[in-house]
């Protein structure tokens, strides 16, 4: 299989920094400026959250961002129009809940129920390279996986601290782009340290190494500081994912774009420092 945009970005910029912000928080116009700032700051992939009213995987920080975005009138149609206008070096992914994927372009009345194809087709047209759906486990992913393959997008799967054995095999065999290693149980949100579960998860995943045929592994959930990024990369990750810490900057900084650019640079620096400490594996 040839590398996708996402896999290529991770391999070329290894160790990769992957950033998440909620689109439309506080407006889609500002999201554009923030994405460009993250791109300038060295983010190698950027995830854009498309808000859903019931974000069950999210902690308080991202829940609040989603509420701000919905209150500002963000819709899937306006979201895609914003992405149409974006020009970044970093490939972009959309992160959203399954019902949003199902309902886009659906009449709601069709006999076989809603269809995921219109969403994926529009995502591809807008230039998005991948999709992450936190409430879609491998068991239910057949239709979306097929549509992603049809339109050339990666469907990113999450591996949790509770994922082991056969489930891990199944997920790894379906993964494309990268595997999202959930650093700890619970919801998203910045934490003060790197969880012990992160190290355990990376050890379990070591069998599927990026240098072989496997897809890269990126760690997220709770990562907020450069030294977390370093620790995670040293432990064997190919990338680190940071979200809530950036949402906090958007909510609180006087100049969020400048703050995001600086934070991305700092996190990327941390990841690179972590690689220098990593036991050589390639």
């Amino acid at each position: 299989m040839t590398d996708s945009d996402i896999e290529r970005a991770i391999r070329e910029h290894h160790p990769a920094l992957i950033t998440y912000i909620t689109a439309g928080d506080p407006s889609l116009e500002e999201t554009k400026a923030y994405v460009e700032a993250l791109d300038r700051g060295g983010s190698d992939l950027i995830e854009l959250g498309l808000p859903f009213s019931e974000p069950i995987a999210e902690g308080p920080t991202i829940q609040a961002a989603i509420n701000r975005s919905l209150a500002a009138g963000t819709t899937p149609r306006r979201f895609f129009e914003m992405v149409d206008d974006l020009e970044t070096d970093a490939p972009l992914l959309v992160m959203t809940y399954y019902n949003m994927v199902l309902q886009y372009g659906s009449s709601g009345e069709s006999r076989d129920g809603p269809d995921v194809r219109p969403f994926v087709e529009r995502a591809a047209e807008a230039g998005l390279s991948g999709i992450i759906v936190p409430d879609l486990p491998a068991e239910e992913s057949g239709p979306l996986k097929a549509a992603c393959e049809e339109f050339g997008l990666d469907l990113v799967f999450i591996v949790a601290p509770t994922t082991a054995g056969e489930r891990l095999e199944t997920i790894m065999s379906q993964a494309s782009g990268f595997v999202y290693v959930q650093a700890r149980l619970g919801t998203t949100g910045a934490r003060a340290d790197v969880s012990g579960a992160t190290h355990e998860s990376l050890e379990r995943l070591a069998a599927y190494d990026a240098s072989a045929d496997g897809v890269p592994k990126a760690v997220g959930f709770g990562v907020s500081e450069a030294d977390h990024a370093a620790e995670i990369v040293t432990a064997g990750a190919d990338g680190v994912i940071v979200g809530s810490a950036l949402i906090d900057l958007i909510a609180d900084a006087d100049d969020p774009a400048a703050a995001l650019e600086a934070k991305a640079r700092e996190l990327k620096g941390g990841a690179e420092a972590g690689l220098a400490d990593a036991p050589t594996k390639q």
Partner: protein
Amino acid sequence: MSESETSFGRYGGQYVPEALMPALEELEDAYQRYVLENEDGFLDEFEERMREFGGRPTPLQRADRLSERYGREVYLKREDLVHGGAHKLNNALGQVLLAKYMGKERIIAETGAGQHGTATAMAAAHLEMPCEIYMGRTDVNRQRPNVYRMRMNGAAVNPVDAGSATLKEAINATLRDWATTVETTHYVIGSVVGPHPFPKMVRDFQAVISEEAREQIQAQAGRLPDSVVACAGGGSNTMGAFHAFVPDESVALYAVEAGGSSLDIDEEAGLAPNSATLSTGTDGVLHGAMTKLLQSGDGQIMESHSVSAGLDYAGVGPELSHLVATDRVTPVSVDDETALNAFHRLSRLEGIIPALESSHALGYLEDAAEDLGEVVVVNVSGRGDKDLETVLEETEKRDLEAAPDVEVFER
């Protein structure tokens, strides 16, 4: 796992974060062994506790004045007589006991009006399990007696401030807790909703309603009923009342939803002034299952409404969606005013104060008795003591034909 095992036709499934999937597999295994195969005598213990602690079996009572009023035989399945005052204990006790058999150390649950929360707190106290209940802040404030009941039974009550701070936000918060504590905690979901195996398991715990009623009606009326009528929020009393009758093709099954103040929705504001999900909803995924939902064209979930807090939910159990799609169950709706009148009518005519939820099923008799055949079973899912405050308030706002004169109070 094949699709047919985790779903009902195209409804159901397991749309949850990966972190919860191993817990669902573990639960599925426990459900199979203890509930379906009676391993370690689980079912024997459950039935004994439902008899001695829960007060089962409940009577099937011929309602003489309603029978006269509607010109047909009306029987009431008296789930209001279950300990706690509603069918909710059938499920709560079953799941808390199962959690014990599974070696879990802690129970969490969501509640809207507080009926499932109080049933779970009672069951947890009875079985000595630590218990935490998530409840929207709005509901905490408008259901104070139920909050006290849960606290008195030793449960912690965690208010949820997100969104409209009602049932759907309470479910979100409970799912988030579970995603964190899944290794030691069981989530006692309150209706036939959520990811597989919850809809099947909760239905099986509630099926005792129709298993008893089916035998009772044959003993008392000498035949099967022409129809069974039950209210539907999430649908647990509904599936409980229907399950044993589903194979009886001559028995019509009516799921009565909350028509609220109107069946129209306000897409702009994201509001549905009703909870008539089966009647007016569209297919989508919420809280772990593909089912009918009240949602905007974009897929955002609507704020629903009903005078009855227990029916106020934008989703519904996937098995009911399937039974409606295959024309086995007929979805109908009854508005706030008809339900309030039915509440007063049953209280006055039969000496039974029904829950506002159950009053929707009773309201359908008034709307469409002529469609229901000669022998009708209505599920009285709960008693109405919990609703007195709401009923007083809502009755004062209206000119209800069945309401009593309360001029004994000084104004």
